[in-house]
């Protein structure tokens, strides 16, 4: 009976130990997948969270880049507009420059032509040798004064009183000097042959004086280069003109330059 009881107790202890071991085994076999699952979930979640953070950072960077790109596009648009305006302005300036260059070239050509005409005129005036009144001006004055007293008085005034007046473009007085039209206006105003003052009349003589096709003694001859001379006939009936030139008061042949028109002067 004692042996049976010991055997039974031994079996009971084995049962208890087996149950304990079964619990431990079940615990371990259960906890291993639990731990693995927890670790995997945690690791996966962490990794994905990091990736989400990186994606968010990339999105932020992309947003910044898009913003910068948008701003850059706007600036490019502004620069393109400015470039277009600058190109238009450049085209306009080029056109203006071309026009200015052409006009400058034309002016240069005109200047060269005028300079050539001026030089030719000066040379022709310097080469005058055959006019008789330069040799004997008193005879001319006497002849003209006897035939046309008023015209002779004007001629005397120019070749005697005003012969030392200097040449000055735009001048209208003996003190400052004369140009050709200024002297003619001064003399005509001095002898009250025109009513306007010389300063106003010097530019409007062709309109103030009545135009005529054939001049008489004392009439005014208008030349292409702006010379305004008085027309006279010598004792032999040969015409000559007297007026202010860059070389002083000269008596010249009427054809020393191209005639534009004749202005009639009403002498008393």
């Amino acid at each position, binding site marked *: 009976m004692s042996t*049976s009881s010991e055997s039974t107790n031994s079996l009971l202890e084995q049962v208890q130990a087996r149950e304990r071991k079964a619990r431990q085994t079940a615990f371990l076999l259960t906890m291993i997948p639990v731990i693995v699952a*927890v670790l995997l979930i945690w690791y996966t979640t962490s990794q994905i969270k990091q990736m989400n953070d990186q994606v968010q950072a990339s999105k932020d960077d992309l947003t910044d880049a898009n913003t910068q790109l948008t701003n850059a596009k706007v600036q490019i648009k502004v620069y393109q507009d400015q470039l277009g305006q600058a190109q238009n302005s450049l085209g306009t300036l080029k056109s203006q420059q071309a026009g200015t260059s052409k006009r400058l070239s034309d002016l240069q050509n005109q200047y060269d032509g005028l300079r050539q005409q001026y030089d030719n005129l000066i040379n022709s005036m310097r080469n005058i040798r055959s006019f008789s009144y330069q040799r004997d001006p008193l005879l001319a004055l006497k002849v003209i004064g006897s035939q046309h007293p008023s015209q002779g008085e004007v001629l005397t005034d120019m070749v005697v009183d005003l012969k030392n007046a200097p040449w000055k473009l735009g001048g209208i007085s003996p003190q400052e000097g004369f140009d050709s039209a200024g002297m003619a206006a001064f003399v005509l105003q001095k002898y009250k042959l025109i009513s306007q003052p010389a300063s106003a009349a010097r530019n409007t003589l062709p309109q103030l004086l009545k135009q005529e096709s054939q001049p008489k003694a004392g009439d005014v001859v208008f030349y292409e280069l702006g010379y305004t001379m008085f027309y006279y006939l010598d004792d032999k009936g040969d015409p000559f003109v007297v007026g202010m030139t860059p070389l002083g008061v000269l008596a010249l042949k009427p054809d020393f330059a191209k005639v534009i028109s004749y202005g009639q002067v009403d002498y008393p």
Partner: protein
Amino acid sequence: MQNTTPADPVNKTENTQDITEKEVDFLIDCQRQAIRYYLRFAIGLAGAGAILLVVIFSIFGGTLTDSLKSLVGIGCGFISSLSALQIKEITPRTQSMRVLALCKIHMNSPDEAVRKKYQDLVWQSLQKMALGN
């Protein structure tokens, strides 16, 4: 039916030992403790899965995508599902505990044959639980 089945523990009379009520109570108590343990373990596993789900959602919930939330839910569900293994251990032990309780009742029977038969049954159960045969 019982006479025609060789493995029927009721009809086996070999290697029998005297089993007292105290020893049967020990076996029943042993089974009860095992049932209690596995039940707590099952509840703990289910709770651990739920707690893990709540913890992860509370920490990473704002940053988890829908697919990741599904993944976490599946993982926690897997942990909780391990409690089914513990439930599986409870069922045979409950059956065994009921059988032992029934045997305990019949071991006090005035009929010697009946008492002997249930003692043999308890003995075989004891052997099986101890040796795993």
